[in-house]
């Protein structure tokens, strides 16, 4: 009937789930089961049952019993989405000694009972879906999962708090870690902060000990001032090429005494750590607590490299550690897993030109503010205007700069509300100034956050609900002269307001690293449209990626605060440890393979695999697929003009048969 001649040797069991009333409420499950038993008998169906809850242990036992007693060779379960219970029923089959991949779960809940209302139509569709499952399962092959040994070492990319956490967790568990950081020191953004919300403990105080631990940990090889150039291989055994940039300082000899920095005659505006508010030398460590303690020579600004003379640092170095001829080093690392914690960039406030940053002196960014509040910062913790002395009397803090804004980023940057509240508190505390917060919505979830909001409210900070239209110095009304005027519609009173202030703080949002997409390509993982790394599952698998053995943590995956970043770092570490402890891991056997006798070596498929799983043998002029690299997407299977590539689990035969099954009812006179 389906146009295929049957497979009489197969004995199929069909199990239709009521899911309480979830399915049975809309689909006549008894009718579906009876239909399958009668109309699909010639296709090999020997038993068809319906049951209240197939996924219950009783339901599973029902299947296991039939497999044993009726000698079923194939099982079709018509219930909920495979994403929920495919594994459940596969395991049940396995328990009864049937290869788990000879079981097919078809969804008549999400795809039928929950989305349709007409009982007859829904029942017919359910029958079609069951027929599709039966035709498909006839072509299933018993499969064995692939096993790959795991190399014990792990690569962590990014030395921010997330990366640090991940590295420490793994190292503490007793396994080697390579921590690669592109800046001269680890610490990331957190090292730039003053206080951390909501508890206001100082960032340095809680971060530095962790940084030191990393620096001293016997299991951690710290590679700062370094970048990953190439990643080859697959889960269990990646080969990673790292470029260790020349520090021009011999770290074996350097004691980190700091004399070179004192003596260096060249001052450079520090755009990175000091956010452009302060200076550093041409030879420098980003900050006093830097780990490692060794400085780097900034070749672009060093007088010696510009003019060929100076060498002050060399002269004064007590240990002769300065080495102007030092070259970049290329290291090759063998690792089994990789954690990407590459962090974020902050939104460039200049892009929101209506807020005047870069044009109006006293408009600051949140990062500048962090530095200004920091006791070790350029102003020694004093909050002053650009002139460096005037203390502001009124300060306006603008939320969502570059976030929740269709001109820039639609997403919420998560941390801005709390960061703004933190600044409101600090400004009040240190200057007694009047503080306005301009917000769209106040977002203070998570532990103790809203309490902090209440506290700031009580402190008398003013809140204006509305998106600021512009910040200008063009005074129109008395009292506005010499001030920055914030033009905003106060949506709570429904009025346009002009609020004159001395200082404006832009709470800028978070953005993916400029080179995030390039990095993703390098590691063979995906980015969302925005550029954040894509996790394997948004809810159920937030730190894994589609590429086995590569995990993500911290803001590289999306905006989040410090606790969340730390949690993800630890979670990624736990996932890695899990893999390491398995010694070898099993991969879903959904893989493509090439029949060499059919392969003509046309090389159509060669460029199609994003995981570089397809290699071409020039000598034999045939292509081959590396099963450990293959992720089973099946693109090459569909592309092969010779039909030489087949994909397990989703073979042409399976899918074509399912099509015929789904259309069986069209080909048949309708059952009365």
């Amino acid at each position, binding site marked *: 009937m389906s146009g295929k001649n049957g497979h009489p040797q197969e004995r199929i069991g069909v199990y239709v789930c009521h899911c309480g009333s979830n399915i049975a409420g809309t689909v006549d499950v008894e009718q579906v089961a009876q239909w399958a038993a009668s109309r699909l008998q010639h296709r090999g169906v020997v038993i068809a049952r319906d049951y209240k809850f197939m996924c219950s242990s009783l339901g599973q036992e029902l299947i296991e019993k039939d497999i044993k007693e009726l000698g079923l060779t194939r099982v079709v379960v018509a219930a909920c989405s495979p994403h929920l219970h495919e594994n459940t029923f596969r395991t049940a089959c396995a328990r009864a000694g049937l290869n788990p991949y000879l079981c097919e779960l078809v969804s008549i809940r999400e795809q039928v009972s929950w989305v349709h209302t007409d009982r007859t139509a829904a029942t017919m569709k359910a029958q079609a879906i069951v027929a599709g499952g039966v035709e498909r399962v006839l072509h299933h092959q018993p499969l064995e999962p692939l096993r790959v040994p795991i190399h014990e070492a792990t690569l962590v990319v990014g030395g921010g708090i997330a990366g640090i956490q991940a590295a420490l967790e793994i190292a503490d568990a007793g396994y080697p870690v390579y921590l690669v950081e592109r800046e001269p020191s680890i610490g990331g953004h957190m090292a730039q902060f003053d206080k951390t919300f909501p508890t206001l403990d100082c960032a340095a105080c809680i971060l530095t000990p962790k940084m030191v631990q990393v620096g001293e940990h016997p299991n951690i090889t710290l590679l700062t001032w370094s970048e990953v150039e190439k990643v080859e291989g697959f889960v269990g055994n990646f080969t990673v090429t790292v470029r260790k940039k020349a520090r021009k300082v011999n770290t074996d000899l350097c004691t980190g005494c700091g004399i070179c920095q004192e003596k260096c005659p060249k001052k450079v505006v520090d755009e990175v750590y000091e956010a452009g508010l302060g200076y550093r030398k041409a030879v420098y460590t980003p900050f006093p607590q830097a780990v490692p303690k060794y400085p780097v020579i900034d070749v672009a600004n060093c007088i010696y490299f510009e003019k060929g003379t100076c060498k002050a640092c060399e002269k004064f170095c007590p240990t002769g550690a300065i080495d102007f001829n030092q070259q970049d080093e290329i290291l090759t690392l063998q690792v089994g897993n990789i954690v990407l914690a590459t962090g974020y960039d902050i939104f460039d406030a200049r892009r929101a030109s209506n807020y005047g940053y870069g044009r109006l002196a006293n408009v600051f960014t949140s990062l500048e503010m962090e530095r200004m509040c920091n006791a070790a910062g350029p102003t020694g913790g004093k909050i002053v205007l650009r002139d460096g002395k005037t203390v502001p009397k009124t300060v306006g803090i603008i939320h969502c700069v570059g976030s929740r804004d269709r001109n820039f980023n639609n997403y919420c940057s998560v941390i801005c509300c709390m960061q703004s509240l933190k600044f409101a508190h600090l400004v009040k505390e240190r200057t007694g100034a009047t503080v306005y917060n301009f917000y769209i919505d106040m977002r203070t979830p998570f532990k103790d956050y809203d309490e902090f909001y209440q506290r700031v409210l009580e402190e008398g900070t003013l809140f204006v609900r509305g998106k600021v239209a512009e910040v200008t110095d063009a005074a129109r009304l008395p009292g506005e002269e010499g001030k920055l005027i914030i033009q905003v519609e106060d949506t709570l009173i429904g009025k346009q307001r002009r609020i004159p202030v001395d200082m404006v703080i832009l709470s800028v949002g978070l953005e993916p690293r400029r080179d995030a997409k390039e990095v993703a390509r390098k590691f063979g993982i995906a980015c969302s449209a925005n550029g954040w790394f894509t996790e394997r599952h948004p809810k159920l698998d937030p730190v894994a990626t589609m590429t086995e053995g590569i995990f993500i943590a911290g803001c590289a995956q999306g905006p989040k605060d410090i606790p969340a970043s730390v949690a993800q770092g630890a979670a990624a570490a736990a996932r890695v440890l899990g893999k390491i402890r398995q010694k070898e891991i099993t991969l879903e056997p959904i893989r493509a393979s090439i029949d060499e*006798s*059919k*392969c*003509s*070596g*046309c*090389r*159509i*498929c*060669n*460029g*199609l695999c994003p995981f570089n799983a397809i290699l*071409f043998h020039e000598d034999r*002029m045939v292509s081959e697929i590396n099963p450990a690299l293959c992720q089973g997407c099946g*693109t090459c299977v*569909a*592309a*092969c*003009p*010779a*039909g*030489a590539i087949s994909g397990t689990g989703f073979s*042409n035969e399976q899918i*074509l048969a399912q099509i015929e099954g789904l259309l069986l009812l069209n080909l048949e006179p309708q059952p009365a």
Partner: protein
Amino acid sequence: MTSNGKPKFAMYWAASCGGCEIAVLNIHEKILDVDANFEVVFWPVAMDAKYKDVEAMPDGSILLTLFNGGIRNSENEEMAHLLRRKSQILVAFGSCACEGCIPGLANLSPVQEIITTAFHTVSTDNPDGLLPQPEWSAPEGELHIPRLLPRLKTLAEVVEVDYYMPGCPPESHQIAAVIDLVIAALQGKAELPPKGSVIGAGNSTVCDECPRARNVKTITAFRRIQDVAPLDPTLCLLEQGIPCNGPATRSGCNARCPRAGAQCIGCYGPAEGVLDYGARLISAFASVIEAREPEEIERILDGIPDPAGQFYRFNLAGSLLKAARTVWK
């Protein structure tokens, strides 16, 4: 059961061009082997044949029948049934019998349209718009000509086929090889392949036999062969933008056309186990196009001005859809 003890051999053409017969004659000396090992009972090209005698033969008394040509009219169809009955081994010989070949392109239009067009050409003197009539009363009496089927069919659509021998026409060296095989089998020196197999062809596709150099493919433009000058004589044609069907076309011809600087047009049909030839090419070509924006993709696809012809040139009658929709209506 055979007059001279030799097994009986027959060859017949239905709607074909005769190229298959020429290809058989082109086995040259080997033709004498056929003469030596078979009693040729029916082969219109090489000898006067007697249908009467074929009908008179007991069923299954012809050992080997090479049937070429598609099924264009009801009489082709009846002939197919007759030879099926009389033959132990019925071979769909050549592209027409296997998959419809070029005449299968007729399945792009309704048969009435085909006839009308032929009788209204610029040189046709047909003021009254006459068309051939299946029944016509001439002054002296009734005249009959056969009606055409609504669409051209492959042999396998009409009768059960034992073996398929693709090619337009099948290469003579392949024919010779198959004849050797059958003769060897007769003498018990060889095994015939399982019924339903494709014989006299390779298992892979034309690229397998093509000497041209190949790289990872990225196509930024399709080009018409007359516009490409000079053509690189050693590089893969597809990589030069020429829509060469080689990657999807069964091997066995020794890549004749690509060797001669012409793109493969697909006369050997789909590779082993392929359900729809055109689909394979559509998928392969589209996969290696280097573009992501729909507009850009469409611009590149404009380089294939005749997709139906490009992808189903020889295979339309044997494809999943078999004919254009207008033919079904």
